[in-house]
């Protein structure tokens, strides 16, 4: 049983985490990002569409559709996020409203498009794209270790990608020129501007990155949670990762910790219900665990955290 807790916990935590990293990019640059939910859904939609389309070309067992789906999910999430950037940066819209609108738009648009595409391209009337099951990797040697061996057993390939991406993103945010400028834009855009930094460009790129990483996360959920793309992808994981990045105080490592707590709460709950032999309808109860935990954590940690100083502020060069 501890094995399934670890394996399921990680496969849920890591996509959540990479999405939170995207959120950190956007928010550290000063753009409030409530749209992660919509980004991941839209990314999963484009990725799943690409996968299903490519099944017809390469066959359902080929690895090409699998990896291509992630590439297209990243692109789709990123491009969709540019709409949020356009509204918030170029047109100086209210970022909270824009974020909420993005979520509603993603949900409506992908549901509609999925049905239309199924009807006109694949000739069925479903509202979902069925994906073939993802392969699992077990690392020889390490997986033989007692207890922690489970960490290296039955890994989804995307989990490795996420760990690598997160590491690179950490370096970009804290060690590179771009990262330094990005964080400056979120604290004091006036000073960044005066230092010769194009605040608009930095923020647009940051929102684009958050869309790309959310797309990656959305595609991962599509494979791990249900092996399909359907409107069920909008279960609030985007909001959960926002909660994680807030508990993580807008820092990458603490956000990882928060995501792990959420993931393990969920997998432990599922294991307990399974172990007690309760009917599967109780699984819905388990799904609420991360959210209940969010409420509790908010009570204890909510006020200690400090958001980027210029978060949510519309930056207009002309204003003093």
């Amino acid at each position, binding site marked *: 049983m501890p094995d399934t807790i670890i394996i399921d916990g990680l496969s849920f935590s890591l996509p959540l985490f990479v999405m939170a990293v995207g959120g950190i990019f956007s928010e550290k640059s000063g753009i409030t990002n409530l749209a992660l939910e919509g980004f991941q859904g839209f990314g999963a939609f484009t990725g799943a569409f690409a996968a299903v389309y490519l099944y017809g070309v390469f066959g359902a067992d080929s690895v090409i559709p699998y990896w291509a789906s992630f590439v297209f999910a990243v692109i789709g999430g990123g491009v969709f996020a540019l709409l949020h950037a356009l509204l918030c940066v170029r047109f100086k819209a209210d970022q909270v409203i824009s974020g909420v609108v993005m979520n509603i738009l993603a949900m409506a648009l992908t549901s509609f498009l999925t049905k239309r595409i199924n009807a006109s391209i694949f000739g069925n009337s479903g509202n979902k794209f069925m994906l073939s099951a993802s392969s699992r990797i077990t690392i020889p040697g390490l997986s033989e270790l007692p207890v922690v061996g489970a960490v290296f057993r039955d890994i989804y390939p995307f989990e490795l990608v996420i760990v690598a991406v997160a590491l690179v993103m950490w*370096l*970009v945010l804290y*060690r*590179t*020129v*771009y*990262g*330094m*400028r990005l*964080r*400056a834009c979120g*604290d*004091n855009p*006036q*000073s*960044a*501007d*005066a*230092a*010769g*930094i194009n605040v608009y460009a930095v923020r647009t790129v940051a929102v684009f990155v958050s869309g790309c990483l959310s797309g990656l996360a959305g595609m991962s959920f599509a494979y791990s949670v249900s092996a399909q793309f359907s409107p069920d992808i909008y279960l609030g994981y985007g909001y959960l990762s926002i909660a994680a990045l807030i508990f993580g105080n807008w820092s990458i490592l603490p956000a990882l910790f928060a995501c792990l707590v959420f993931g393990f709460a969920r997998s432990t709950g599922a294991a307990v219900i399974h172990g007690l032999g309760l009917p599967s309808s109780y699984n819905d109860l388990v799904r609420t665990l991360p959210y209940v935990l969010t409420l509790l954590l908010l009570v204890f940690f909510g006020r200690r955290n400090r958001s980027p*100083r210029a978060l949510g502020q519309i930056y207009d*060069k002309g204003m*003093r």
Partner: protein
Amino acid sequence: MAEPIVEFRHITKKFPGIVANDDVSFTVNKGEIFAVLGENGAGKSTLVSALFGMYEPDGGEILVRGKPERITSPRYAGTLGIGMVHQHFRLVSNYTVAENIVLGLEPVRKVCGIPFVDMKKANRDVAALSERYGLKVSPTDVTGDLSVAAMQRVEILKMLYREAEILIFDEPTAVLTPQEIDAFLQTVKTLRDSGKTIILITHKLREIKAVADRCAIMARGKLVSILDVKTASTDEMARLMVGHDISFTTEKAPAKFGEVVLDVDGLTVKNVAGYDAVKGVSFQVHAGEVFAVAGVSGNGQNELADSIAGLAKVSGGTVTLSGHDITNATVREHITAGVAYIPEDRHNVGLVLDFTLRGNFPLRLYDSPKYSRGSIINYREYNEQSARLQEEYDIRSSQGGETIVREMSGGNQQKAIIAREIDMKTPLIIFMQPTRGLDAGAVMNVRKYIIAERDRGAAVLLISLDLDEILDCADTIGVIYSGKMSKIAPASELTAEVIGEYMMGVGKTA
């Protein structure tokens, strides 16, 4: 022959309702300290903002090193070697000193083609620069924790790191203590001697006299005169700036003390960090008395004022107003008891910036029957009060009572607060740093109000970092040092030197 480096030619800039600059022309020479003097709203900030690329003038042109330039952004100004320290610093608070200085021009170490910031080199460069110009900073300190003076040094180093040659300072001393001002002026001289050109915007004559070579005087958007500072007298500069003579001492009749109004006994107040900032302070203020508290910034003045006004919690001792104990009473109870307060932080405590001027006046008494019937606002009374106070206190704004307060100048914002508080006609009125950041004309006005309040029979508690102001207004002076009143004496018995010693904590304890 002096070599011109910046030339303003017929600069005109209009804002809705106001001509900020009206056909202003002058030349700044390389290697001089050029001061731009004028009251608040004279258009001096607007003018140099155009040089720094923050506004484009509607008419006229700017020449830099003899070439006409359209300076469209601060970025472009930077490439021309122009740097500016704004009145409100532009620093990233959670960055280190070195990170702030190199931001936008970071030393880069490429790894696999990815530009990483070379922080070691940044720290070294900043340390070297700091050494070279004698501007003491520690590269790895977090900027948000620094004192105001240290942040200003960071701003100066930021310009020097970019090898700026024309350095603009907008009201650089408004936020500094007297000692810090002296150090700053010394820095400015050092910079000039190393070949930089300095443009100094200020309304403080003493500083211009101390460092500037030449000085342009502006009033109401127009250039009034350009003076050679060495040969011009302070009186002449002041007269040109204000348009009429101003005397630097407030005339006042001898004080007539009445009953004790404010009785502070053994007052102890903790600061935000939880330490005792005011430690067992006792004093009394009578009706018709100006009791002034002198001291260096950060010795408990804020906590003292806030606790008497009811904004901070008293942890020990009592505050009594005309015989009623108001220790730890609510703000509402303080208002009813009769405490008026002009706070130091105008923007966060004194005003609701996004309200209209008219809406800011009744903030203290909005629920009294005069301003509301039941829960319905009496706008007739609002309008009447707004018109009356604007007239009486000469509060200027673009749209009268309908002006959003955020858009008003600092001097007029302060006038609005003072008008509101005085209008309550309370037995006790507290002035906390009432003239900070105001120009000479406005300063004299505020001091007149302080004396007028005293003569009306109010007890006046004046807390100020400006020793001139204290000597000018006070009947009784208390010196606060490290949270304790180290000296209380009638103003006539104290000299500036003696007060200074107590302020530094070296005076003999009374």
